[in-house]
């Protein structure tokens, strides 16, 4: 019995320490030192909240760069993936779908990230090659002249994120930021 009372008291103390004090200190530091990050890295356009830099969005209009396929249609409540196994019929079906999207291209030129769904369902990025494939379509739909098309190319190359510190991660481009910038092209 003595151990039971010690255990109860110790549990209560540890709960206060690790479940209240520790997260509150981290919240305080987050809100003071990293307020933008701690609140979701929000992007506003013309004073309106348009999304989080880190959370991918659904783009279906041909005027925009399309992101990766998503198992949850880019609505992360909850987040998740297709969970297709390597011999799932879902994989060849996904390829069929992609062939329709990129009718004018040899689909073998389409990078793997454009063909298959992400893990989170809200992957904000594309590989640079997957974005480049879409420039002609966007320029055509927007009725862009040659020099405006060149602006898309420049914009895209400018927004490519190389591996962090030249080492960590993969080259990529943020689709949401790319599309926000795309709308600014005159």
């Amino acid at each position, binding site marked *: 019995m003595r*151990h039971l*009372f*010690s*255990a109860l*008291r*110790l*549990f209560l*103390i*540890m709960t206060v320490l*690790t*479940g*209240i004090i*520790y997260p509150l200190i*981290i*919240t305080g530091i987050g809100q003071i030192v*990293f307020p933008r*990050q*701690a*609140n*979701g890295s929000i992007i506003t*356009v013309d004073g309106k909240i348009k*999304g*989080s830099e*880190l959370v991918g*969005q*659904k*783009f279906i209009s041909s005027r*925009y760069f399309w992101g990766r396929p998503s198992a949850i249609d*880019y609505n*992360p*409540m*909850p*987040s*998740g*993936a*297709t*969970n297709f*196994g*390597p*011999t799932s019929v879902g994989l060849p079906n*996904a*390829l069929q779908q992609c062939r329709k999207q990129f009718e004018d291209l040899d689909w*073998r030129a389409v990078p*793997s*990230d454009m*063909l298959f769904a*992400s*893990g*989170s*369902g*809200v*992957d904000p990025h594309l590989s640079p090659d997957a974005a480049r494939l879409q420039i002609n379509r966007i320029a055509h739909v927007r009725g862009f002249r040659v020099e405006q098309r060149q602006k898309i190319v420049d914009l895209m190359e400018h927004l490519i994120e190389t*591996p*962090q510190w030249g080492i*960590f*991660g*993969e080259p*990529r481009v943020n689709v949401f930021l790319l*599309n*926000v910038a795309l709308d600014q092209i005159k």
Partner: protein
Amino acid sequence: MHLHEVVQIVLYLFFLLALTPVLGLFMAKVFNGGHTWLTPLLRPLEKAIYRLAGIDENTEMRWSTYVWALLIFNFIGFVVVFVMQMIQDKLPLNPQKLPGVSMVLAFNTAVSFMTNTNWQSYAGETSLSYFTQMLGLTVQNFLSAATGVAVLLALTRGLTRRSLQTIGNFWVDLVRTTLYVLLPLAFILAILLLGQGVVQTFSPSLHIQTLESHTQIIPLGPAASQIAIKQMGTNGGGFFNANSSYPLENPTPLSNFFQMLSLLLIPAALTYTYGIMVNSRRQGWVIFAAMMVLFLMGLMVSLWAEYGYNPVTGIAGSMEGKEVRFGVTNSVLWATATTAASNGSVNAMHDSLSPLAGLVAMFNIMLGEVIFGGVGAGLYGMLIFVIITVFIAGLMVGRTPEYLGKKIEAFEVKMSMLAVIAPSLVILVFSAIACVTDAGLSSLGNKGPHGLSEILYAFSSAGGNNGSAFAGLNANTTFYNIMLGIAMLIGRFAVIVPVLAIAGSMANKKNAPFSAGTFQTDNATFVVLLVAIVIIVGGLTFFPALSLGPIVEHLLMLAGHVF
């Protein structure tokens, strides 16, 4: 693979190796009650805790008392998390107005976090309030990890003490581990993650109109504080459903690197701590080496498999279930590390890994979570294999087995076998039950041999206290919530109790004098033997099941079959 990807793996191994002695030495000082740079700050707090809880830090416990204290403490944790989930709608910090969690799901999640498994039948953003995540799950993330270290410390004392009845004080081991090791490391990691973009706020989810005017709900919450200890404590239960593949839980390649390093940091460093505590650093490095060899073998097979060609799609290095910022290499490195450690967090979906990469993940768990393994749990699991190895080597040369100058006798070998067999039995028997019942089969997300893999993975993950999943399997059903819950309990306590029994029995023994016939346990030969025993025991137990799951699937994939 590109050069920068190889560099990432090398850097990962380098930091792991370099930090092992640094953190290992620090922990040894803490556990031996020595003076560290944190002592002036934390010692008064530590003493206050003992006073408030009515604990005498100088009283030592027999092994049976140690077990009793551990079980009571864990049971309280279970009850609190269980009840808290069911009444979360009546508690504060619930801005989404989430309802109370159902009883079976609450049971599964409470068991899961008490046993350091952190299996996700729940989806954080849609089923748990901020209150439950903070005061329920975060607390258990600390305490279950500290429990693992406590058991390891008790075993280590048992191995080193001569003719003594006691093996330490559970409360002191628990408090010291939490205060001096887990809290400071979690604190550092949380701040690093905050800087990279992990959220930490009490605001409700954001409802927004996207650039293309779709409605999107972005879940937020006090995530950074929880994710830090989720990784440091080899817990792995996500704040969000998609775990560390979700950008607000793991936003950048750098946050990914920090989290990945944390997966193995404490378990690796504990081998060095162990070396100091048994007064022979070589003994620690020998175990580190055996773990590293097993880890590298798995990593290489997994990389080879995942970059391989899949005739079903005609593509090599598929991005299905992976994130662009991590790519294939970081997804595979993470998958290997998270299953080697009993962490179970994911940054890519294991269900979509190629058959052999999935096999490596599963096999890492099936080996008993001893490749670095859980905090504390990995090393005490490996020490069980050390005892078995010494025993088998003794049989081969016809001598009495000894370890660290003490005889290994029938009782220790029986207890070791119990600790190895219990989780394996649970994995195989429960998988078999799931395979022949409608309740088990109706949850499958994939057909064909991959379906068997989903079931096998689920019970391996629960029995091995890992927590990762082939997530196509819908585990939030009455059948799986209860069966997996029981598997986690057996996988945790049917190992801990025998380990503590060994600790008690070894502490009581006298020294066996070192002689020319003593089998050396601190050289390369022993590393080879230990690795071989771990693989043979795991292989013999699970090869038949694995051959019907991932191995058949690999062959069918090469023939282009789909299901």
